[in-house]
């Protein structure tokens, strides 16, 4: 796998520039690309989320908002102006810092959360050769960098000097740290079978054998443990007790407004995209097309299998996973705190540990 940074460095060095000039420029380009991905992702995902909630709960607003008088019919294009309205609202909102808040930390906290999501994107591949930087320890890098965000959540809650915020951040810390364990154990299973931490190698293994979710009954179970835990990790309903509107106003983001709140929003949707892409790479065959599984399509269809279609298939899988996350969000009620901890410590972790043992046995036998 060649990464975007590598190929940029290679193409810049043909201009006979010094490496001290090339590297900052290339790094800057990489960062801009990640920021664009995050911004576009948030715009599209917010529209997606509002429309899905409107379809599921009969909400009227997101179906009506037009743009410059263009109403766009009732169903699909109706509400196309909602995204623009949201963006303008976030940018022109008054920026408030409470008097007794720890101002330095309150300003710093959103940037820590944003940095966590930003750094994670560096290692996330979008297709075989479309990755900002290709790490040998790819999946471990993503796991490591996604654990930074929780510090920002705790600091945001504490620095606001507000009891709802403090409650929210305590809940967030307990929840995110707990759910990292089943996620780590499920990913360990993949590393155990494929024998590599490199995401390209993991997909290559799936190309040679079969999609990981279909590898054995235990990996099938592991996918669901992973997926449900990532929903908890991204703080989405039914696991959104840190921001539980009906009890904590908005939890750890109660005192935030304007652009700093927009950063939370951006990071939440970026994390959704990251976990969906990681789930589809690790368990659902990454950039391999699902057509290869069935083997019943005529040869002319196999053009969809080519490496050029990798980006399409990976986004296709990720978008389906994101849709299921939204579907779950708008149909299930919120869990109680003790139910959340029960689910993690007494169901997911024992199952993940037993899974690990049985997958090792499965690998020995077959």
């Amino acid at each position: 796998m060649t990464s975007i940074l590598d190929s940029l460095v290679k193409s810049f060095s043909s201009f006979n520039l010094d490496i001290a000039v090339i590297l900052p420029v290339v790094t800057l380009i990489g960062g801009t690309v990640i920021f664009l991905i995050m911004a576009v992702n948030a715009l599209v995902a917010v529209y997606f989320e509002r429309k899905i909630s409107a379809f599921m709960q009969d909400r009227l607003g997101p179906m009506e908002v037009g743009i410059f008088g263009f109403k766009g019919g009732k169903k699909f294009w109706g509400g196309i102006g909602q995204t623009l309205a949201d963006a303008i609202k976030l940018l022109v909102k008054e920026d408030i810092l409470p008097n007794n808040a720890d101002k330095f930390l309150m300003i710093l906290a959103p940037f820590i959360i944003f940095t966590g999501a930003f750094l994670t994107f560096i290692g996330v591949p979008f297709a075989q050769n479309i990755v900002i930087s290709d790490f040998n320890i790819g999946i471990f890098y993503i796991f490591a960098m996604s654990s930074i965000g929780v510090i920002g959540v705790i600091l945001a809650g504490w620095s606001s000097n507000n009891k709802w915020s403090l409650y929210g951040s305590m809940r967030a810390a307990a929840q995110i740290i707990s759910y990292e364990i089943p996620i780590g154990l499920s990913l360990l299973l993949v590393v155990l079978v494929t024998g590599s931490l490199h995401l390209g190698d993991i997909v290559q293994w799936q190309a040679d054998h079969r999609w990981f979710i279909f590898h054995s009954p235990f990996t099938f179970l592991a996918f669901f443990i992973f997926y449900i835990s990532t929903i908890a990790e991204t703080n989405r309903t039914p696991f959104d007790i840190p921001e539980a509107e009906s009890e904590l106003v908005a939890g750890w983001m109660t005192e935030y407004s304007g652009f700093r709140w927009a950063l939370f929003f951006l990071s939440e949707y970026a994390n959704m995209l990251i976990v969906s892409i990681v789930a589809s790479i690790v368990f659902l065959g990454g950039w391999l097309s699902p057509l290869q599984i069935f083997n019943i399509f005529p040869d002319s269809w196999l053009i969809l299998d080519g490496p050029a279609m990798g980006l399409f298939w990976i986004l296709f899988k990720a978008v389906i996973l994101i849709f299921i996350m939204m579907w779950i969000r708008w149909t299930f009620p919120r869990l109680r705190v003790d139910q959340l901890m029960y689910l993690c410590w007494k169901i997911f972790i024992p199952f993940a540990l037993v899974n690990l043992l049985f997958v090792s046995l499965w690998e020995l036998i077959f």
Partner: protein
Amino acid sequence: MAENLFIIIAALVIASAFWVVFSPNLIHSAVSLIFTLFSTAGLYIFLYADFIAATQVVIYVGGILVLIIFGVMLTNSIDTPSIAASSKNQFIGGMGALTIFVIQVAVIFNTPWHIGTEQSRDSTVASIGNLLLNEYLLPFEIISILLLAALMGAALLSRRT
């Protein structure tokens, strides 16, 4: 290029470590520790130890630091800590710190450092795994038993009787 980057990262480690010690606000110390630990991971990357660097971030930033901030956050009177309020034992403490500093400087200047040219390596994960499970198996197992005992102790202490 690489030297400048190294100097920036090393300066960040030292400056944030200073702020950890001298900040009057406990939680600011804890936040400053983020930058110390994260920049240390950057120093590991300079040594081609990518796996160690990621482990540093997972364990120290994602685990231990969260626990520290969580603990500090729930203590009373964060703004007015009474850590350095009493001047007892300042002399002995200072002497101890100075001795350790002198020993470390002596070690740094007397070690024959291996200075090679930069070269890209393969992944270090495989060799770390081999060494842990072959040559250093006994220490590895002892550490894991120690951690298991700590885990059981923590569970026992926090249980409501």
